[in-house]
């Protein structure tokens, strides 16, 4: 029986012994994020005492052919940790960690491979004293999830959700569908084998300290929540800016070294960033105070925000949404190509033949700006401006709450030089922290007002913050779904997005507004906010 928790205190859930089974265990996500995250958890002593990782899938690299699978995944993990881990690889910890890494090669559509996986898991259970609990992490393209779920169910590898001894949970990566219908289909597919309380739909943004801190800031301090409404807040800006484009090139040869175009083309920024990350962050920012920290209570509060989003007609989409695509420009002092050029070169490499530039007429948006409203009492007529784009001047994500101007009297009496408004900013990346801009008198005999910025950085706590994946993997082990998307939240987010997508589909625009790489987006986005007498923040 768990220890009782005093009323009002958050449940402290402990990660439970289990095997983490990573589908696509040697793939890019696993290599860059998941295996380094698990290593860091191991190094910090956060993993349960009985724990192992088993990768599953056909080896995706040449190194995986004809070698011992367990040694292969250990090499792959070591390489990923050396490159991407928050903490440097330590040989003593590595030796301990590597012993718990295994790999089962096999196709996701092959029933025999699941039998081999099942046998391996049984052996690992015995070796590590694990009671049969499993976390199946689907680090695979969305179209492969169905086969994985089907075979897991048919192989009897999913326990009853009420099983108190050996739990089974699955982690589903975004994108959850590419529109409302396909999202419902993904939910249905997973639903065939896993109950809702066994399903963890991950959005790594919610694992970031600052995003979690949004709730702490609002509900653990007395000064913010009374101001957190339409009476005092002028508007909110949520920005996710990325410096990188969709392809990286070798500066010597000009060849593509890495690319997300295969995934991104036809998907675009609205689906890739807004539907999930940004709306989730918006929910944390705008939700009503939950009556407890229970996962479902918080997820209810978030879902309520999504239900209150004002849906747009096609005419309103034109007024409130701007999309754009980057063209050649300058990033970090280097000339970089436009998106269509990247698409052309990507498909040339795939097709291994030249493709004429004029035949590439992608209308995939690499930039989106939205003005949206939450139709409830708290946020009545407060605009929320969302902006995300690739190849912007810097990598920076933040939530900025801009408070209303003080009256135009006293220190704000000069209309030529109005005082800068008070702004509370929560920085999500690259450095997590928060800041507040306030007005202050400059020292001296004259009354001169100048904006000052008070800053807090998470780095000032000393230790480096855990990566988002570390926190979220730990939550899955502990059975805490607070930071994961519930199905109704996913559906509600798609319901908001669909009118925009439908409008764009009918519009069939071949030429989107363009912006140079290294600028803050198309001029149409500036006009969107300027027509309200406001401006995008300088990040």
């Amino acid at each position: 029986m768990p220890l009782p928790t005093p009323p009002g205190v958050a449940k402290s859930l402990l990660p439970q012994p289990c095997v983490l089974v990573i589908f696509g265990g040697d793939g890019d996500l696993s290599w860059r994020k998941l295996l380094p995250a698990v290593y860091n958890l191991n190094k910090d002593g956060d993993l349960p005492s009985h724990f192992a990782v088993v990768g599953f899938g056909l080896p995706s690299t040449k190194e995986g052919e004809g070698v011992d699978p367990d040694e292969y995944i250990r090499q792959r993990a070591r390489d990923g940790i050396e490159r991407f881990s928050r903490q440097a690889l330590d040989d003593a910890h590595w030796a301990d960690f590597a012993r718990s890494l295994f790999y089962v090669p096999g196709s996701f559509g092959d029933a025999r491979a699941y039998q081999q996986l099942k046998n391996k898991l049984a052996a690992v259970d015995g070796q590590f004293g694990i009671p049969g609990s499993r976390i199946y992490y689907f680090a695979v393209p969305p179209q492969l999830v169905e086969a994985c779920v089907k075979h897991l169910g048919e192989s009897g590898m999913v326990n009853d959700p009420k099983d108190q001894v050996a739990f089974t949970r699955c982690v589903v990566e975004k994108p959850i569908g590419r529109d409302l219908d396909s999202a419902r289909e993904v939910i249905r597919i997973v639903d065939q084998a896993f109950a809702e309380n066994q399903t963890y739909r991950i959005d790594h943004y919610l694992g970031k300290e600052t995003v979690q801190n949004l709730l702490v800031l609002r509900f653990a301090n007395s000064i913010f929540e009374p101001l957190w409404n339409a009476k005092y807040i002028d508007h909110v800006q949520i920005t996710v800016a990325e410096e990188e484009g969709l392809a990286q090139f070798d500066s010597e040869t000009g060849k593509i070294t890495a690319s997300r175009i295969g995934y991104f083309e036809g998907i675009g920024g609205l689906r890739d960033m807004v539907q999930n990350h940004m709306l989730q962050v918006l929910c944390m920012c705008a939700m009503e105070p939950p009556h407890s920290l229970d996962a479902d209570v918080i997820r209810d509060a978030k879902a309520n925000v999504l239900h209150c989003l004002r849906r747009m007609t096609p005419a309103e989409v034109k007024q409130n949404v701007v999309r754009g695509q980057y063209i050649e420009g300058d990033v970090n002092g280097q000339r970089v190509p436009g998106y269509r050029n990247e698409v052309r070169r990507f498909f040339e490499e795939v097709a291994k033949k030249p493709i004429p530039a004029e035949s590439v007429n992608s209308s995939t948006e690499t930039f989106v700006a939205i003005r949206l409203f939450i139709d409830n009492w708290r946020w009545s007529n407060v605009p929320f401006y969302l902006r995300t784009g690739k190849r912007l001047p810097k990598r920076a994500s933040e939530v900025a709450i801009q408070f209303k101007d003080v009256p135009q009297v006293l220190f704000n009496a000069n209309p030529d030089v109005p005082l800068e408004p008070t702004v509370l900013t929560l920085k999500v990346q690259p450095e997590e922290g928060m800041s507040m801009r306030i007005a202050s008198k400059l020292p001296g005999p004259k009354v001169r007002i100048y904006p000052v910025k008070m800053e807090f950085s998470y780095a000032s706590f000393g230790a480096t913050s855990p990566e988002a994946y570390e926190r979220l993997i730990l939550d899955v082990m502990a059975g805490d779904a607070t930071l994961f998307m519930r199905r109704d939240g996913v559906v509600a987010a798609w319901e908001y997005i669909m009118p925009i997508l439908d409008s764009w589909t009918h519009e069939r625009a071949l030429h989107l507004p363009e912006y140079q790489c290294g600028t803050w987006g198309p001029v149409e986005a500036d006009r969107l906010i300027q027509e309200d007498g406001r401006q995008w923040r300088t990040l």
Partner: protein
Amino acid sequence: MSDTANPILPGAVPVPLEDVERELSRQLKAPRDDKREVVQLVRMSNLVIYCDTVEAARQVGAQVPDVVAVHPARVLLLVGDNGTSATTIHAAVRVQGHKLGEHQQACSEQVVLSAGAGITDRLPFAVRSLLIGDLPTNLWWASPQPPPLAGSLLYDLAEHAQQIMYDSLGWPDPAHGVAATATWLESVERFHDADRWRVASDLNWRRLKYWRRLVAQALEPVDVATITEVAVGHGPHAVVQAWELLSWLATRVRWQVQAGKVQPGVEMAWRFLAPQGDVRFRIRRTEQGPPEIKGMRIRCMVDDKPVTLDLISESAGKLVIRLEGTAAEPRTILSPDLSLAEVIGKQLSDRERDPVFRESMQVAQAMAKSLLA
């Protein structure tokens, strides 16, 4: 790794552009000699400085420590032509501390971004990535090219700036520069959205503060309707300073310029229409001396007697009014001898739009047009 030979900011470490923030952070956290010292990063604004050449940037760079001592800022010092044909922008980084107290040190971030002549237009991209949000951005246009004639580079650099500071001292073609300034001020300071504003400031105007005060005091006992002639003498490069003083005076007394003529390199002269008739204005350059106003002579009547008010910069920090033709004792006012860094430091904190400056520049524009007609 320290490039003490950096000609612009000694001690600045060369880094790839994408590593600037990382290097700033590293230098800030680097151990100090005095372990008890509290090190604090201070910044009130972003200060973007544009210079055309390495030599100009070196001179400006020498002022940077004094500027940030008065007005802490993240400094981005741009060099438009570093004398190379490089196709990438070079960055060098320095975190510089200055003592605040016995065990306290304030640090400022200073970055040099230099471009080959062919890629100057790419500097604004680099600037965008290095600005700090929520802090005002000031652009110091430290180029002899008048801002109105500078083209798109200035507009791109000023994209996020709330203040553009320029210095009309030493403009190579003063008449064309002055002719374009009033219109440029109007365009550069106007925004359509209410939340946004920008001011442009001429450092020469700030330098004139004490001269304007002196002239106002000198004219106190004078009926301005008796003034017949005003002449200003100035050292090399200070023609616009003298011009701004005259245009300010014309603004105050509301006289209209009628005609002007120029004797290149020597004298400019105008005829103004005043209620009492024509008034002659002259600006005369001397061959030697510092780049500043040396003196001003105003012919007028006091107590129905013709007199000449002689206003002189007598010595550093001292302006004198003499009333020739009378026995009156000279009067003096103190005029602090501000260094360039002090002028910049004061201007950075002063963001009020000065309507008198704008009016004066409109008159100056009319004066310029009369010369160019």
